[in-house]
């Protein structure tokens, strides 16, 4: 018998809901060293990556977000009870630190689409001209890319400044060469969510040329346990 692990949390003694888990399996709470792990018993060897399973995983993690801020496990985490116990015991200090980091917070997401300035690309004609023409064309291309990267960084800095003081942490992916320029995740204290939203409404009005998608609150997926996952995968603690 294996366990499907959804998330890990503190200050949680009982589940006051009956949110079904992967494939409709009942979800129960396992206490290990004063930490709570939400799990389902399962006999499968691998969890199919389907929309239904992904939504079920997310729904279970979110079901306790009203009570506490959990650390979500990666989708598809299957372990034995012994492995899970060993994992939690061996990494308890790091888990406690991570839980303290996200305590009282939720994740808010901001995505920005822009009309990226067209990149100058070397043409086929320049690919068959002289070597000097080729390098001159490349110089134009590189300068264009640098200018675009600079504009992208300015937008990222501008957004960070708008919400500074309201976020505890940030994870941002900036892709100057693509229309979906910025995907940012902000760790926001629950009491600050309304102010955070108000700040973003004002920010959007100031930059009509940018298109925003703001979502949340979500469990802190972007701030969960990347290094813990790596430690687990590579056996390095």
């Amino acid at each position, binding site marked *: 018998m294996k366990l499907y692990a959804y998330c890990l949390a503190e200050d949680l003694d009982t589940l006051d809901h009956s949110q079904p888990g992967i494939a409709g399996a009942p979800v129960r709470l396992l206490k290990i060293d004063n930490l709570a792990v939400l799990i389902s018993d399962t006999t499968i060897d691998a969890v199919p990556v389907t929309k239904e399973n992904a939504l079920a995983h997310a729904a279970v993690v979110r079901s306790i977000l009203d009570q506490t801020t959990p650390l979500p496990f990666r989708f598809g985490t299957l372990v034995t009870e012994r492995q899970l116990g060993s994992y939690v015991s061996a990494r308890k200090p790091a888990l406690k630190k991570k839980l303290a980091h996200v305590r009282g917070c939720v994740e808010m997401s901001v995505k920005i689409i822009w009309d990226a300035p067209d990149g100058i690309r070397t043409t086929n004609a320049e690919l068959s001209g002289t070597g000097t023409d*080729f390098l001159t064309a490349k110089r134009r291309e590189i300068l264009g890319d640098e200018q675009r990267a600079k504009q992208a960084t300015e937008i990222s800095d501008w957004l960070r400044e708008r919400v500074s003081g309201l976020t505890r942490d940030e994870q941002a992916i900036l892709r100057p060469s693509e229309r979906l320029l910025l995907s940012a995740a902000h760790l926001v204290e629950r*009491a600050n969510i309304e102010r955070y939203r108000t700040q973003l409404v004002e920010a959007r009005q100031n930059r009509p040329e940018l298109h925003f998608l703001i979502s949340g609150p979500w469990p802190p997926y972007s701030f969960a346990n990347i290094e813990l996952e790596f430690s687990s995968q590579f056996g390095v603690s």
Partner: protein
Amino acid sequence: MALSPENPLSAEPEIETSHAEEFVEQLRCVADTLPSRINIDAQSVEQGLAKLVLTLIEFIRRLLEKQAVRRMEGGDLSPEQIEELGLALMRLEAKLQELKSQFGLEDEDLNLDLGPIGRLI
């Protein structure tokens, strides 16, 4: 239940945008780049390996180009050296395009997603 300062622990997520279709399209593009499942067969392994190797070559090629342009801007190359360097890089790019076409790869295929760090190229 909506979030409010009076009820800060409630957590129903909301999604807010005036450009929903545009975001759906962009996010679909991102999703489309992820394989729905991994097919292990001779053809896909060969193409996957070619993609990885050509991505690394493309990365190094771009570094070489930038270095060449910097040296050209710095004025420490003679016109003959600029011509020679430019020709070598031009042929390298042409050769890479030929290899991409042989393996059925497009420009946007030659990249690696490094997660939180972003993309390689």
